[in-house]
């Protein structure tokens, strides 16, 4: 089990706002790793930088031993990682099927057709609604679509940014079950959550992010029982 993703000394700025202050972390093959932290801690900034949407000022991002921090954003997905962004960001005016097709943009037609069947098995709801535009789906269905769309590139590493945001508790449970199932099938997961309780309970390892810095790390179980983490993120 080697490092799949290794981030070292990452610094990210918005103009002159120093949002990520020299963080380092790693994700090993087969793991579920979670980044938790309060609103504004820098979780999304971190994922978006790894995913190529933002450019780091300094630091390195290695994926399977290759440096990817200089890779153009649209090529990052071909490296084998997919980001399911905060707020889902499905293409509202495209149909469910078209959204999934876009997820396989870098792959050929035959590969896409095969993967789409697998995604439909995983998310039967999406199959039922494949001809509907994504904007007409419920929040939970949109989240499933966003995850299905990310899976269409057959990523080795799937990054999820607050997949449970705004969902009813029963749907949250369902989404976390799916994440665990994906992981069992061999996809490595980097999960960002404000719902620390849920995230820590499925994570192998976790990092706690506070105003752009990593302030704590450990196994999911350790952090669930850590006093400072309990106080700050688990409501006592």
């Amino acid at each position, binding site marked *: 089990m080697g490092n799949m993703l290794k981030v070292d000394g990452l610094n990210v700025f918005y103009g002159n706002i120093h949002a990520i202050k020299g963080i380092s972390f790693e994700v090993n093959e087969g793991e579920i790793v979670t980044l938790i932290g309060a609103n504004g801690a820098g979780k999304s900034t971190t994922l978006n930088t790894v*995913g*190529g*949407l933002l450019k780091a000022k300094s630091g390195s991002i290695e994926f399977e031993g290759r440096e990817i921090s200089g890779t*153009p*954003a*649209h*090529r990052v*997905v*071909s490296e084998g990682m*997919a*980001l399911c*962004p905060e*707020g*889902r*960001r*499905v*293409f*509202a*005016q*495209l149909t469910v099927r*078209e959204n999934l*097709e*876009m*997820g396989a*943009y*870098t792959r050929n037609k035959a590969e896409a057709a095969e993967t789409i069947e697998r995604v439909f098995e995983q998310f039967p709801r999406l199959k039922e609604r494949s001809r509907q535009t994504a*904007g007409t789906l419920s929040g939970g269905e949109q989240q499933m679509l966003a995850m299905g*769309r*990310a899976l269409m*590139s057959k990523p080795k590493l799937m990054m999820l940014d607050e997949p449970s945001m705004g969902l009813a508790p029963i749907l949250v449970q369902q989404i976390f079950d799916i994440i665990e199932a994906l992981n069992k099938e061999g996809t490595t997961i980097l999960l960002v959550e404000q719902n620390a309780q849920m995230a820590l309970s499925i994570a192998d390892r976790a990092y706690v992010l506070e105003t752009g810095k990593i302030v704590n790390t450990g196994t999911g179980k350790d952090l669930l029982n850590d006093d400072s983490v309990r106080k700050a993120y688990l409501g006592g």
Partner: protein
Amino acid sequence: MLTYLINGISLGSVYAIIALGYTMVYGIAKMLNFAHGDVIMVGGYAAYCAMAYLGWPPAAAVVFSIAVCTMLGIVIERLAYKPLREATSLAVLITAIGVSYFLQNAALLIWSSNPKIFPNIFASMPPLKIGDAQISAVTIVTICANIIIMIALTLFTGKTKMGKAMRAVSEDKGAATLMGINVNFTISMTFAIGSGLAAIAGVLLCTAYPNLVPTTGAMPGIKAFVAAVFGGIGSIPGAMIGGILLGVIEIVARALVPAVPSDIFVFAVLIIVLLIKPDGLLGRKISEKV
């Protein structure tokens, strides 16, 4: 009356073809390319030069014109607009107006302000007679071209991978990038298609109104913009309907009240549409999902 209607539809078809360029670029790059009208003018001159100086047959001249404008569209986007991708829309708008003046003045330098008389490229085709109405070949060709372009674009955006990617980019550039879509390339292609259509519009316009001058594209460009807003900017069928309605309004108004310049009606339409339905006939409110 039938003649007016058909002539209106024909003029409107030219507006529609131009409006498609406006609307596609707006839909995908979220900018108003005010130089679009001047690309039409360049298309007219390109076809004129190919025929008058190189002695090419009309069909080859049209292809040449499309090639020139497609390249021009890509170059304009690359040099003038791409560096402003993160800039305010006002900066982009002013740049577009600058590009428009640049093209007009470049044309003035190269071809002078003396009108070039554009040849009737459909001279060999006889006009169509319906009752006592006579419909010229260029009118018919224009309407047919419009229909073909409409169908082709609908199929392109609905069925092809590139077309779907364009729609994805128009909704969310960041999410599209995450899919592996090269947003810059997609925007470039949008300009290429829009400008290629402008070349076709230029040839059709100059065949119907043969006085070709450096400002030939300006007024049709503005009217096509009105048509695009009228139909709902960003919407392909909207551009089509807006263009045709505008052409019909203009020609019918010119016939019914010849004392009043018909452009007044065109711009009155813009103002009324903006007041009553700011999104245009087929425009949709883009609801921001958080």
